């Protein structure tokens, strides 16, 4: 892949520097006032990419790190060697999960705007990744997500009420009021505690996978990181340790092209993210992240490799962050307003819906009815959740429980501090 064309990044209008800077500064795909334009993107046709043998080497398939595995074409037809053998029932299940996630996100975002949550993050446009991957994995596989893989919880069956209770830190919050919204943890579902620190858990996932191999078990670890977060050292360590010890892990990069206001060009090193895996001898794929079927197939392939003892797989999911980073920012301040519309890979829900309709397994009417059903169910869940307490009014966990779990057993100095709290 060629380097992006050399452009000086300066836009200074009033630069008093005596220096003639030659520093290159990357550009954004678009900024406000510009026309969003993805026409330079080379997007291979669905079905065009070959499916390599499970025991391929990274260099043998290095082209796949620069391409794009796609199954669903623009008309919603599944095509090519990667098309997974999924039953209509499974496809409908996937569609339902994605729609459920979207309904949940919309509700929670609105509740944040009404002051009921301190913060919220949606995954709009990226639902296929978490939902499809969770469906392709086994329940004993350990998930190390970021804050944008809420879909995993829906597939693994976490009660929505419990997720909400966490987000409003109420008396039923399994995290006891300690974490910001969306930093879920769910041991029962093998869903690891999310950290506010980006990328730190990516390399922990590899350690988890090494332990699985150490114990002779078949479980794999699956971890996610955003495009921007790939710059963190933990990603390097994850790749290196996964390669060195051939850990049974799936390492995903969710390239939604933005990291708050920073475009992927600051993290992508003029290449694809997947390309970074090849130098570590880790077979690396680049996948249409808005294509439920392609994500499923790639994950299944990677999981099989892991279970056969063939080591880790690195997967870049190419997608687009349709909305703001979180409730704290307005994307219109840093990218062209129409960029989301210009994005050519579409919406994952629409694409899977069309596929199911093509198969004769779904209809517009069913779709609309399901959307209403899910919206109502989320509304009912919310009502139930706030019946266990709200962020501002409580009830919360008793405040003195903040001293619990710092250590397994509370040492004397914390007992003393708890007393001083006077509750």
């Amino acid at each position, binding site marked *: 892949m060629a380097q992006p064309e050399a452009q000086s990044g300066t836009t200074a209008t009033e630069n008093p520097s005596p220096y003639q800077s030659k520093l290159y500064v990357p550009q954004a795909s678009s900024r406000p006032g510009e026309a969003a334009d993805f026409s330079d993107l080379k997007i291979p046709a669905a079905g065009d990419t070959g499916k390599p043998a499970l025991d391929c080497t990274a260099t043998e398939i290095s082209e796949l790190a620069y391409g794009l595995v796609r199954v669903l074409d623009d008309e919603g037809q599944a095509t090519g060697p990667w098309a997974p053998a999924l039953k209509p029932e499974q496809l409908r299940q996937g569609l339902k999960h994605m729609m459920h996630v979207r309904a949940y996100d919309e509700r929670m975002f609105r509740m944040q705007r009404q002051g009921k949550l301190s913060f919220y993050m949606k995954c709009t446009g990226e639902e296929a990744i978490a939902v499809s991957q969770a469906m392709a994995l086994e329940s004993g596989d350990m998930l190390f997500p970021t804050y944008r893989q809420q879909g995993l919880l829906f597939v693994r069956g976490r009660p929505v009420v419990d997720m909400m209770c966490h987000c409003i830190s109420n008396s039923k919050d399994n995290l006891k*009021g*300690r974490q*910001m919204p969306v930093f879920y943890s769910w041991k029962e579902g093998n869903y690891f505690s999310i950290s*506010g620190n980006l990328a730190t858990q990516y390399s922990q996932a590899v350690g988890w996978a090494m332990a699985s191999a150490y114990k002779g078990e078949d479980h794999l670890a699956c971890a996610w990181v955003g495009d921007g977060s790939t710059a963190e050292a933990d990603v390097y360590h994850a790749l290196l340790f996964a390669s060195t010890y051939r850990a049974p892990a799936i390492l995903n990069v969710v390239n939604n092209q933005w990291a708050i*206001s920073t475009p992927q060009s*600051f993290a992508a090193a003029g290449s694809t993210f997947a390309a970074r895996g090849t130098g570590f001898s880790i077979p690396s794929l680049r996948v249409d992240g808005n294509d439920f079927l392609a994500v499923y197939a790639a994950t299944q392939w990677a999981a099989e490799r892991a279970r056969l003892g063939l080591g880790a797989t690195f997967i870049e999911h190419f997608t687009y962050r349709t909305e703001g980073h979180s409730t704290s920012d307005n994307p219109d301040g840093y990218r062209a307003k129409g960029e989301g519309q210009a994005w050519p890979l579409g919406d994952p829900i629409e694409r899977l819906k069309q596929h199911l309709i093509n198969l004769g397994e779904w209809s517009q009417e069913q779709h609309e009815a399901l959307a209403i059903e899910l919206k109502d169910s989320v509304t009912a869940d919310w009502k139930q959740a706030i019946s266990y307490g709200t962020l501002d009014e409580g009830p919360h966990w008793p405040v003195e429980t903040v*001293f619990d779990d710092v250590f397994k057993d509370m040492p004397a100095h914390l007992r003393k501090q708890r007393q*001083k709290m006077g509750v």
Partner: protein
Amino acid sequence: MAKMTMVQAINSALDCTMKKDPNVLVMGQDVGYFGGVFRCTEGLYEKYGSHRALDTPIAEGGIMAAAIGMGVNGLRPVVEMQFADYIYPAIDQIISELARLRHRSGGEFFAPVTVRAPSGGGIRGGQTHSQSPEGIFTHVCGLKTVMPSNPYDAKGLLIAAIEDDDPVMFFEPKRIYNGPFYGHGSDSHGGENKVITSWSAHPAGEVPEEYYKIELGKAATVMPGDDVTVLAYGTMVHVAEAAIKASGINAELIDLRTLLPLDLETVAESVQKTGRCVIIHEATRTSGYGAELVAEVQEECFWCLKAPIERVTGWDTPYPHAFEWEYFPSRERIIEALERTLACD
């Protein structure tokens, strides 16, 4: 003179130094085009270009290393860590390299890097957007550590930090970016604590638009008093002030401003007068900077002390999302400590 919030004052400090010295640049995550998640670098990109308001990858360790290299090559980088909680990936570069370079090279090399980091709680940021790690850096020889408590100081201290040839850790108490915080009601969740007080009503919200410096290493006496010395910095200066006023106690309140080097003279003089000392910080208690203050004060003022020196601090727990007002050293806890201290004879 203008009315400025602390965010605006910091922005103005950056603007003044960038205007004055082409070697100054700001760098960090989202500091360029976007102007920073707290808006501290707003407008600098438009004014000075993408090379001097430099967006970076999300790699605190890489940013710090790049800044050190730039510093060695004659620039004065001002690094923004998006949250102080995210300094740790850069801490090896800070401790092992930035702090040690001048000494280990026999004075041959140095890197005049300033690290700005929004710190402290009070914005419902939970454990990873609320930390106060300043104590750690005061243990590292070769670093200066600063935390302003108001817009006027923030601007003057930041300019001094940037122009200092030693590396400076500059912690910005984000709870008071947009207005002072007086520790409203630690028991109410929805109510009083949401009151936003504005800097425009505060005398230190008056900030000159032009360049000025406040010397590092000098504390400020916020309120004179005779019966007990209260040492605080950052957000806690205002909570302490409110507590003192509410208690009616004749306390002397000192805003340390620079933690290292510490203005021990001002501190010791006060405690020698009052014979009592209460220290307040948000950071966790054990081995926090308050411990160092206790150690120094008791060493300097032992013979005048009429009561044990008290520390009112954050608890030794991670910073909790739902319970920040119980975590914050509250007016109530400060008043109790003052009263306990005064009760000793």
